[in-house]
C-alpha cells in the first residue's frame, strides 16, 4: 500500500480553529497520533450550520451520501451548495470568520474532530470549475501529491503517474508528453489532468465544483464518462448548474435553496417526480 493510513490526532488548536476560521499553528493537526481511522464508507452530515460572520449560509443540513455513488448538488447561485461541498475537505477552514457546527462524518471519521487535515485532504480530493494545473510537466503535476506524502522512488512514482492517467482515461494521449508542460494542454485535457492529479493520492472521495462549466461538449462528455468509471472506486460529490448533467450521471441529487436542503433523493425520482414544489420549479426552469 503506497499510502499508509495516518493516525487520528487529539482535539487541538487546529480543529478548534477550523470551526471558527481562525488560523492554527502549523502542524497542529498532525501531532498527537492516536488510533487508526478509515474514510471508506458513506458521508453522513447531521444538523450542519455554517456562518460567514453573522450571515448563515447553511441551515441545519442533514444528509447521508452513499459511498461509491455520484451525488449532485444543484440550486441557484448563492444557495450554499459549493459552501457545503467545501465542508467535506475543510476548505472553509481557510475562510476568516467562518463558523461550522454539526456533525460531519466520512466513513468512521469525524472530520471536524481529532484528525489530521492533510490526511483528510488526501482522502477527499477536489476539482474546481477552472482547470488549475501547476506550471510544471504533466508527470510532475501527477507526482506532486505522492511526493508531498513522502514517495520519492522513481519506480513508485512512475507507477502512480501511469495508474492515475489511466484512471482518468488519459494515458494513451499523454504517455509521450509526460515531460511537456501541463499548461500546453487543452482546457478539457487540463481538467482531466487535475482529476488524475487528485486520483494520484488514492482518495476515497472526489469533490467536483462545476467541473465542466468551462468546457466544450466533447470534453464534458469525457469527464462525465470518467465520473461514471470512477464511482466504482470513489465517492463523487459534484456541484453542477447543468440540470441535464445531474440527470445524466448522478445517482442522488440534492437541491439547495437559500442555505436550506430542500429535497434530496434518487436522481430519477427528483427529475421525474420531485416532491417539493420549489424543486419542481427550479428543475423545470420556472424558478425566479
Amino acid at each position, binding site marked *: 500500500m503506497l499510502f499508509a493510513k495516518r493516525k487520528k490526532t487529539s482535539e487541538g488548536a487546529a480543529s478548534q480553529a477550523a470551526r471558527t476560521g481562525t488560523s492554527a499553528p502549523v502542524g497542529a493537526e498532525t501531532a498527537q497520533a492516536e488510533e487508526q481511522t478509515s474514510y471508506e464508507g458513506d458521508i453522513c452530515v447531521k444538523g450542519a450550520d455554517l456562518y460567514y460572520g453573522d450571515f448563515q449560509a447553511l441551515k441545519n443540513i442533514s444528509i447521508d451520501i452513499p459511498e461509491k455513488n455520484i451525488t449532485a448538488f444543484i440550486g441557484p447561485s448563492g444557495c450554499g451548495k459549493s459552501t457545503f461541498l467545501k465542508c467535506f475537505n475543510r476548505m472553509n477552514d481557510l475562510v476568516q470568520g467562518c463558523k461550522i457546527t454539526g456533525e460531519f462524518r466520512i466513513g468512521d471519521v469525524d472530520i471536524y474532530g481529532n484528525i489530521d487535515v492533510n490526511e483528510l485532504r488526501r482522502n477527499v480530493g477536489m476539482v474546481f470549475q477552472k482547470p488549475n494545473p501547476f506550471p510544471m510537466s504533466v508527470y510532475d503535476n501527477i507526482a506532486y501529491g505522492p511526493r508531498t506524502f513522502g514517495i520519492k522512488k522513481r519506480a513508485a512514482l512512475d507507477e502512480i503517474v501511469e495508474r492515475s492517467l489511466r484512471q482518468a482515461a488519459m494515458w494513451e494521449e499523454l504517455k509521450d508528453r509526460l515531460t511537456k508542460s501541463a499548461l500546453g494542454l487543452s482546457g478539457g485535457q487540463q481538467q482531466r489532468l487535475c482529476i488524475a492529479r487528485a486520483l494520484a493520492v488514492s482518495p476515497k472521495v472526489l469533490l467536483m465544483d462545476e467541473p465542466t462549466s468551462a468546457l466544450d461538449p466533447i470534453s464534458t462528455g469525457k469527464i462525465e464518462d470518467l465520473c461514471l468509471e470512477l464511482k466504482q472506486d470513489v465517492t463523487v460529490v459534484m456541484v453542477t448548474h447543468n*440540470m441535464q448533467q445531474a440527470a445524466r450521471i448522478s445517482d442522488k441529487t440534492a437541491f439547495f435553496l437559500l442555505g436550506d436542503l430542500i429535497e434530496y433523493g434518487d436522481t430519477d425520482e427528483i427529475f*421525474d417526480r420531485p416532491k417539493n414544489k420549489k424543486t419542481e420549479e427550479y428543475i423545470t*426552469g420556472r424558478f*425566479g
Partner: protein
Amino acid sequence: MVRKAFDEQLALLKALLVKMGEYNCEAIADAVTALETQDAELARKTKAVESLVDEKEQQIERLCLKLILKQQPVASDLLFVTSAMKMITDMERIADQAVDISDLVIKMSRLPYADSLEEITDMAERVQDMVRKAAEAFVETSGEKAKEVCRADDAVDDLFEVVKGKLTGIVHKDIEEDNNGEQALDLLMVAKYLEKIGDHATNIAEWVLFMITGEHKKLN
C-alpha cells in the same frame, strides 16, 4: 415569467390534444349514429373526421419531438410530453376503428339488421362516454375521472361476451337456413371494434394517471 416560450408551447400542445379528442368523439358519434340509423352518408363522413385526427396526431408528434429537443423537459413537463406522445397513438386507433365500424355500416345499410342491436347500442353509448370522460380527465387533470374510465371497461367487455353469444346463435341459425351468416359476423366485428375502442379509452386514462402520478399502471 421564466420560460414563457416553453409554457406557450405546452399550452399549444394541450390545445391540440383537446382538439384531437373532440375529433375522436365526433368520429365515434358519427359511426354510432350511422350504425343505429343505417345512414351510409353519415358513415362516409367519419372518414373525413378520421383524416383530421391523423393530421392532429402528426402535428402533436412533431411538437413533442421539438419540445424534447429544444426544451429538454423534466419532471411534470416531461410526464406531460411523454404521456401526450403515448395518448395520441390510442386516439388515432380509436378514429381508425370508428372508420372500420362505418365501413361495415355502409356494407350493411341496405338490409335490415339480423339482431335488435340492443347490446351493441349499449356498448356504443358506454365507449363514447369513456372516450369523452378520458378527454375530460386529461383537460381537468382528474385522476378520479381517469379511474372511472378504467372501471367502466369491465361492463363493455361483459357486453361484448353477450353480443358474441347472441350473434353466434344467429350464425348457426343462418347456416341451417342456407344463409352464410355474413351480417351477423359483420355485427360481431362492429362489437369487437367497440370493445377495442373501450380498451384504447382505458389506455388514454392510464396515461392521464401517468401524467399525474408518474407511474404507469395497467388498470384493466
